[in-house]
């Protein structure tokens, strides 16, 4: 909402400075967004008087003027035909930037005669397109004075943000009322008076609604003016409209725009000679359409309220008028409309047609229902003043919804909700100044709400009005109650796990990314998603249309973008949500990562100490296990070959507590999926389902006693020949289980195929560590354990000890 200081002062009697007004506006909820003072831009330009104007010796169309300025008399060469002795004009000295010619002035010789500055036209000053001659100021203007005021261009323009609850402040008078209430002056008397007509309005006004649509337009008033003379509106009106960014059209249109901004009251004017029969407000019929004043044709339907006559739809009530009945400079007889439209229907219609207008903006927020008739009186007075003519009486159909609204209000609510103790009188004054009526004696009042405040309906709203006007800066900070002693921990298990996983993965050299929750649909499909219910109806682009089924596609695409920038070794992770469906419980929380190129734990890329090797499934298996280990589940998690289809079928797996409790996927992404996404593989990836982890059993903080002996450890190596398909994990489990008390560790230190190993077989070499419990082991005891290891492995894997 834009207005000028001068405009504001038509409604507000005040001595306050501009800065004080701006600060107050912001404080009371009318946030100042921008202030533009045109006088600042015009500051370098001052009044100069032409003492003598003589023909240039070498040019017929130029004159050499002696100009009296603030800095003495200077010589100026001027081409304007109206330059003459005694003229007072706008002088720009050398060094001044002249906006209309986009140039900084210098002392220059023009056809051999020196010129020290310039006398300007309106176009050169960029205040209009006028360029027939130089500006002629009032003869009384004082030489050297700034010209902004003399040109009527010293009125600062203020732009404020109006929150949706304050339609009353979409008119300058509403803003003035708020400022007056907040102690910035007094609200002047309302200038709107009834204008009597000399004849009955010849245009009939009708409301044609069913019972269930009657509230679409409950009141419609109209009035005719005969014999007007339309044309450009006067300068003061044009200047105001221009100042707030509106384009002057003609007097009739300018009047409706002015009243929309002055009183927040949208009106419409019709050329009465273009109307056929009665003017009716009714719901549109499907198939109807009309050409609007914005040049577009709109198809309307039965949910929309239109204004129509015998010829059909004239316009969309409360949103935009139609071209067929619009006023032009030739208009002689004008029909003025002032109506009340239902905010909800206006909003719905505007949204459906994607049509915004000053009228819609006001009606959908709620205009003052009591100002329907005063609005038409105001318009009538301005039409008579600016265009002449003869007024008809007002005709009104229906009644606006202005039933009395009264709230029981106990002023102790102010203390309860704000903590600020105020005098009864102070609270009462604030409300009264805003237009509320109070009856009763404090602290309990009956408060009547002004018709222009649709936002106020309960005591909390009145508390807001009071504290807003008193000033929220008057609220003193008060400490909240705190627990006795040291603050308690607050995180849930899931939150702790997420934090732990994040620091842990970063500690493994992965860089945390935050990628979009929505991805391209075909990508989602490649990762098991892309269901219709997870597709946005209005995505910002087709690349961001499908809720991600997994964190991996976003990370893989991110790795590729880094690859394209020359960083092929990317280790990225993300901790966040993904979606299996649209219900709250379908959202799951995961920690996922990708490693591309040679981005392994030991470092990526070439290095003098040894080049990095390509990241593979074991790097990401290690990542997943590290996270599970930190959560206490690494030992119980079993690897199984059941990774989903977007993983490489041979180089992937899951970690699970059982088939129903999958904790993580890991492996290389499927080459076909990478191909489909345009990603240069291979990419190793893991995804850990943090919320699949069971809640830990509450255990004692006391650790079990450390159980070690100083007896010599015994280490024995075994190499087994097994079939190629045998899982090393099975062999290790068998070895570990062969003798539970003595075997403390089994590690796999070699996997070999090749010379000496028969086709279809592989050699797995393990080191078994025995920890004696009570005494050093004898050779016989060690041999006995070795035999158990061999037979256990043989039984589990069919393997045999290598000779």
């Amino acid at each position, binding site marked *: 909402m834009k207005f000028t200081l001068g405009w504001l002062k038509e409604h507000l009697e005040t001595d306050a400075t501009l800065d004080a007004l701006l600060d107050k506006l912001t404080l009371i909820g009318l946030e100042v967004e921008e202030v533009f003072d045109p006088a600042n831009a015009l500051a370098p330009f001052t009044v100069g008087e032409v003492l003598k104007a003589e023909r240039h010796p070498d040019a017929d169309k130029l004159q050499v003027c002696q100009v009296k300025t603030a800095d003495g008399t200077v010589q100026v060469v001027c081409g304007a035909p109206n330059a003459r002795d005694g003229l007072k004009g706008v002088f720009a000295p050398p060094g001044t930037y002249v906006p209309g010619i986009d140039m900084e002035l210098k002392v220059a010789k023009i056809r051999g005669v020196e010129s020290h500055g310039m006398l300007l036209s309106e176009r050169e000053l960029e205040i209009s397109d006028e360029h027939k001659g130089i500006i002629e100021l009032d003869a009384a203007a004082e030489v050297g004075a700034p010209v902004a005021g003399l040109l009527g261009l010293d009125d600062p323009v203020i732009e404020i943000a109006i929150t949706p609850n304050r339609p009353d402040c979409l008119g300058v008078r509403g803003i003035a009322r708020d400022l007056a209430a907040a102690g910035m002056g007094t609200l002047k008397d309302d200038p709107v008076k009834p204008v009597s007509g000399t004849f009955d309005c010849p245009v009939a006004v009708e409301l044609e609604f069913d019972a269930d649509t009657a509230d679409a337009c409950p009141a419609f008033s109209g009035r005719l003016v005969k014999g007007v003379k339309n044309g450009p509106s006067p300068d003061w009106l044009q200047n105001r409209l221009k100042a707030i960014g509106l384009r002057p059209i003609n007097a009739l249109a300018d009047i409706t725009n002015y009243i929309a901004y002055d009183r927040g009251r949208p009106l419409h004017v019709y050329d009465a000679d273009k109307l056929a029969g009665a003017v009716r407000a009714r719901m549109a019929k499907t198939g109807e359409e009309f050409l609007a004043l914005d040049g577009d044709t709109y198809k309307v339907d039965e949910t929309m309220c239109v204004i129509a006559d015998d010829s059909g739809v004239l316009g969309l009530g409360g949103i935009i008028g139609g071209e067929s009945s619009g006023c032009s400079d030739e208009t002689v007889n004008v029909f003025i409309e002032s109506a009340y439209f239902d905010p909800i229907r206006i909003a719905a219609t505007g949204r459906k047609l994607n049509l915004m207008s000053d009228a819609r903006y006001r009606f959908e927020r709620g205009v003052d229902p009591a100002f329907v008739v005063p609005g038409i009186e105001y318009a009538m007075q301005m039409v008579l003043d600016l265009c002449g003519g003869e007024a008809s009486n007002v005709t009104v159909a229906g009644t606006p919804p202005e039933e009395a609204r009264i709230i029981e209000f106990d002023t102790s609510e102010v203390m309860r909700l704000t903590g600020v103790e105020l005098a009864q009188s102070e609270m009462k004054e604030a409300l009264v100044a805003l237009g509320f009526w109070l009856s009763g004696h404090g602290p309990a009042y009956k408060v009547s709400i002004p018709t222009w405040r649709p936002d106020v309906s309960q005591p*909390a709203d009145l508390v807001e009005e009071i504290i807003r006007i008193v000033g929220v800066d008057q609220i003193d*900070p008060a400490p909240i109650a705190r627990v006795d002693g040291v603050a308690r921990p607050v995180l849930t298990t899931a939150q702790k796990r997420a934090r732990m996983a994040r620091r842990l993965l970063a500690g493994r050299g992965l860089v*945390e990314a935050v990628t*979009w929750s929505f991805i391209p649909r075909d990508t989602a499909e490649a990762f098991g998603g892309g269901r219709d219910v997870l597709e946005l*109806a209005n995505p910002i682009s087709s690349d961001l249309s499908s809720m991600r089924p997994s964190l991996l596609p976003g990370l893989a695409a991110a790795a590729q973008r*880094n690859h394209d920038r020359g960083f092929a070794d990317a280790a990225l992770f993300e901790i966040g949500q993904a979606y299996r469906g649209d219900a709250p419980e379908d959202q799951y929380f995961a920690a996922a990562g990708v490693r591309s190129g040679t981005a392994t734990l030991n470092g990526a890329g070439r290095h003098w100490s040894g080049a990095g090797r390509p990241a593979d499934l074991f790097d990401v298996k290690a990542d997943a296990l590290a996270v599970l280990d930190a959560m206490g589940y690494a030992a119980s998690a079993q690897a199984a070959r059941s990774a989903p289809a977007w993983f490489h079928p041979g180089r992937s797996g899951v970690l699970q507590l059982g088939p129903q409790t999958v904790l993580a996927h890991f492996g290389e992404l499927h080459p076909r999926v990478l191909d489909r996404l345009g990603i240069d593989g291979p990419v190793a990836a893991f995804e850990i389902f943090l919320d699949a982890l069971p809640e830990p059993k509450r255990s004692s903080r006391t650790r079990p006693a450390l159980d070690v002996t100083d007896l010599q450890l015994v280490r024995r190596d075994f190499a087994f020949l097994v079939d190629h398909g045998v899982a090393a994990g099975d062999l290790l489990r068998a070895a570990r289980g062969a003798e539970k008390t003595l075997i403390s560790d089994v590690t796999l230190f070699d996997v070999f195929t090749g010379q000496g190993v028969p086709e279809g077989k592989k050699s797995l070499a393990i080191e078994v560590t025995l920890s004696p419990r009570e005494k050093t082991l004898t050779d016989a005891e060690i041999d006995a354990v070795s035999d158990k290891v061999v037979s256990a492995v043989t039984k589990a894997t069919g393997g045999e000890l290598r000779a």
Partner: protein
Amino acid sequence: MTTTNFEQLEKELLEAVAAAGDLVTLEDVRVTALGKKGRISELMKGLGGLEPDERKAVGQAVNGLKTRVSDALSARKDMLHEAELSQRLANEQADITLPPREGPLSEGRIHPVSQVMDEITEIFADMGFAIAEGPDIETDYHNFGALNIPDEHPARQEHDTFYFNEREDGSRLVLRTHTSPVQIRTMENNDPPVRVIAPGRVYRCDSDQTHTPMFHQVEGLVIDEVTHMGHLKWVVDAFCRAFFEVDEVKMRFRASHFPFTEPSMEVDVGYAKVGDEVRIGEGDDWLEILGCGMVHPNVLRNVGYDPARVQGFAFGMGIDRLAMLKYGMPDLRPFFGADLRWLKHYGFGVLDVPTLARGMSS
């Protein structure tokens, strides 16, 4: 053996010791002299066959000889050892300017959004706020209706909502446009008192230099029987001082409007721009950082609370924006671009864990 012979032997042995150029040769000399069948050892064995008087004199001489040769061997051994070590060390000259692998701890980074969430959590945990969470895919009711934003209300237009397709029953789900629905879910599932923050992703159908279709907010909610706007102001002020790590923050509270709070305020912090640096808490310019207010009675009624009995405040602020203000990222969009160069530059080290004891930033 004569004395001369002893002297001769000693001379020979000591010369051999002195001539030994390495530890292997020296060991040979030791064996020749003191080994089982060494020359001095043989002399010692021969002592047994002598007369007692003679044995004493010769014994002394042999022992003296043995001691001196032993000492010489030992000294020579030390010297050779030292020489060998010096030689080895002279050959063991590494180029200490060779760069080692940096190791994973210095490669990994925490995203600024996560880091700032950790900071926020740390600060509010101290004030007794728990962390609440809710789904991104929300019902229209939780995102709007329960928050006192009716259908077709102009406040909805300001939300640039992402919608899912209409379902058979005519309802349509939305991507939450703010973290406020978590207020509703928290109150629906808990009786007062409530004291939570709810950080998370939010979505708006909007994209330009300062807007991305996804960003992060943190919601705060306190409900009990006494909390008023003074408490709200105190919490906001305490948070800002702790978060921006300054003793005083110049702040401006001004009236505003949100459908779900009444009365409502917006909060600006003062800042000064010095070069490229934004200094929060000083200066004459204002930056809006937060919207807040007393929870609207309609909202309390919607979750089954009695607004005559319980009251409290809610606030919401942009996490990404807080990160930008504190750490100086000029643009929002790269937050979600996963560009390694940006993440390494603006990200945080693994061990850079914000705590009250050490401070929010290192």
